[in-house]
């Protein structure tokens, strides 16, 4: 049974960009979690997660964002989430993630947001 999932990592001007593709569920979330942990271990505290090609997310995937954001903010960084499709955005909104996380339209906006407000202002 195919469970398409891929992560693409890159660095841009001191920001870590992780593009997530496919299905982020309880099966694939550990891989996503490990990737973010690797970035944090390397001292990269400003992370953009591009979800343009993310077609599905369950609470296991959402939990990864939830478990790291505090640590990143304490270190002066943040996690900005961009490119959510309406279907995936609906799941974020259902749980109130828009109150906690910076959800922006695209990568450029996320980069700009890091320059303007490194940590989401509540």
């Amino acid at each position, binding site marked *: 049974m195919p469970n398409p999932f891929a992560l693409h990592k890159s660095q841009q001007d001191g920001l870590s960009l992780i593009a997530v593709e496919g299905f982020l569920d309880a099966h694939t979330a550990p891989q996503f979690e490990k990737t973010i942990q690797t970035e944090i271990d390397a001292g990269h505290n400003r992370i953009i997660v591009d979800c343009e090609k993310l077609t599905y997310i369950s609470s296991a995937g959402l939990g990864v964002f*939830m478990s790291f954001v505090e640590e990143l903010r304490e270190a002066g960084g943040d996690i900005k989430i961009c490119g959510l499709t309406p279907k995936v955005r609906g799941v974020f909104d259902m749980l109130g993630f828009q109150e906690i996380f910076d959800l922006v339209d695209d990568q450029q906006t996320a980069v700009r947001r890091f320059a303007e407000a490194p940590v989401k202002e509540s």
Partner: protein
Amino acid sequence: MAAIERTFTLHVPSSTENLALIREFVTSVGTQAGLDQSDIGKLELAVDEACANVIEHAYGHDATKEVVVRAIFDEEVLRIKVIDTGRGFDPQSIPQADLERLVAERRSGGLGLRLMKSLVDEVRYEFEPGQKNELHMTKRIKKTTP
């Protein structure tokens, strides 16, 4: 005339690898039952959450165990039962902390039941400790106006 009831059952080994298969099953049944795309997506996620709970908590990732997903529908309602024989795990027994607290505590879990309740019309549990645990979910089928 009595409504015709249809039943479909999927048995899969208790592994997160099979969540994609379970979602495909729910999508197929939801389509056949006449749910719209939005409701199919919601039911798919709700069943994924229920099965992930069984795989991780009731069976502790023991792939020799089996998760059963049964779908029963007529013209008005689609019912899903997620059946396991593992530890009787009642997600409703876990206090539901708000999102800010979960974030402050750096938790990665605690969202599944909240999602399930938001996604379907009814969530209910039946337990027979050591015998069988069943999670029942109900989704009403919206009538399309001609």
